[in-house]
């Protein structure tokens, strides 16, 4: 179960981690500055297992994988949004950061709600409000990547098979 941090629409990768910090890819260093201008208390108070909830087009802008890496570095266990920008979507899948598309959940969940993800049942469970929301299930090709633990693990497995 995780506590939710709520954000609005069009949170860009510049919001998540500003350009000036892209001189490293260390998750812990990036985490210190994650979302700092948008919500100064976020990097200070975020706890392992917390969730980010946002509106439309989360992660728009640059392709920097530093953005999902920073969120993962903060201990964020998953992101729920109405929609994701496409490169952010890929990056999160590829590095094994779970993301869930659900307009209903994104609208209904409030700051601080305690929320759990039931992967098997494709359900987001809001313990605070006693509500459930469905999420867009992953196509099997993406599930394969997630199940392998990320794209590199998946590629290693595939290349191994081809040999």
């Amino acid at each position: 179960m995780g506590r939710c941090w709520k954000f609005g629409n069009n949170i860009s990768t510049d919001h998540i981690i500003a350009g000036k910090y892209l001189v490293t890819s260390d998750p812990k260093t990036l985490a210190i500055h994650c979302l700092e201008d948008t919500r100064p208390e976020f990097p200070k108070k975020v706890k392992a297992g917390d969730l980010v909830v946002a509106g439309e087009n989360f992660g728009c802008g640059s392709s920097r994988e530093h953005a999902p890496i920073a969120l993962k570095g903060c201990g964020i266990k998953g992101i729920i949004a109405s929609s994701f920008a496409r490169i952010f979507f890929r990056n999160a899948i590829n590095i094994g950061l779970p993301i869930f598309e659900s307009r209903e959940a994104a609208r209904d969940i409030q700051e601080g709600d305690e929320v759990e993800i039931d992967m098997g049942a494709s359900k987001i469970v809001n313990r605070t409000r006693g509500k459930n929301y469905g999420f867009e299930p992953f196509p099997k090709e993406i599930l394969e990547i997630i199940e392998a633990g990320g794209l590199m693990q998946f590629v290693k497995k595939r290349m191994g098979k081809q040999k």
Partner: protein
Amino acid sequence: MTLAERIIAAHSGQSEVYPGQFVYADVDFCLGNDITAPIAIKEFEEAGLEKVFDRNRIALVPDHFTPSKDIASAQQVKTLRDFARRHQLEYFFEIGSMGVEHALLPELGLVLPGDLVIGADSHTCTYGALGAFAVGVGSTDLAACFATGKVWLKVPETIKFLFNGRLPKWSSGKDLILFVIGDIGVDGALYKVMEFTGPAISALPIDDRFAICNMAVEAGAKAGIIPPDKIAEKYVKGRAKRGYVMYSSNGAASYCQTKEYDASKITPQVALPNLPSNVQPVEALARIDIDQVVIGSCTNGRITDLRVAAGILKGKKVHPYVRLIVIPATQAIYLEALKEGLIETFLKAGASVSTPTCGPCLGGHMGILAEGERCLATTNRNFPGRMGHPKSEVYLSSPAVAAASAVTGKITHPAEAI
């Protein structure tokens, strides 16, 4: 099939593909930069991979924080350099040959019509101007491509943008794309391909087309694409490092949507903070004073852009309250601008001219904004803090509006500064 679908089909061994389908596509060319490639290299090495798929189909372009602005950024470039030497990569670019990646690769004939290109940089979509299917991805995708030469893709739907008429005198490809993003919003083409066609597009020089496809990602698109024609072919001829194929949409192409515009109504546009979709025509703006103007980037740092800017600045002075920074996007563009006397025009006007770099575009170096400062830039993004202090502002425009505004000190229609 649409142009994009035909390219994807040809690269995934299918006679036909349909939107929503998953494919593992062969990649003709891939690229990374000094920000994204270090992660890709780390992933590649941590996975114990030893061989790249093709040393002639990978470009590493250290353009973001170069010439290295500090020790950390120098380390990142060194990671690229070491990897390039270890794997004998043909296309690693030191400063002196380096340029802003999305201007450099087309200029060198490394990305071509009909190609399927991936780049660990969101503006990889720029190459759609040549009729390539080019998509921005992340570092892990690049690492996987280093090893396999492939990328996973979900075949996107295509929206057709049809432009009738002709752009008016002071409008450019940049104004056209700003207008479209203002119309459909920053997620108006999410996951989709934007195909730009019509008489107004056919009449545009290649540099304007690059600017248009460059900003497709600002509408959330996976790719922007322009059917390759004589102008595209003229550009690639003599540069192409490989063979290429000029695809077009075929008769049965199905678009998820078609949008029609009258290009003759698109006047110079400006995107106000803090979204590229926050677009207004210049003439509708109240007085907006500016502190800095940047002319450059992968959107508008090409020779056509510099010519337009110099044409306006010739014999004039930059406003005393404004700093003008001009950054030719590549060495070849720099040299051409020098030969044509454009650099002299900029210097005499009181501009600072820089070696090619992304620099200020992403708030990296070479022109960072202080608190409360306002910059008008020919770049592509104006999210909060993009060019410096979180309370600084970025406005986006064409080179013509940027140059005119540098002279007057406020956001100005080019016709007023001439």
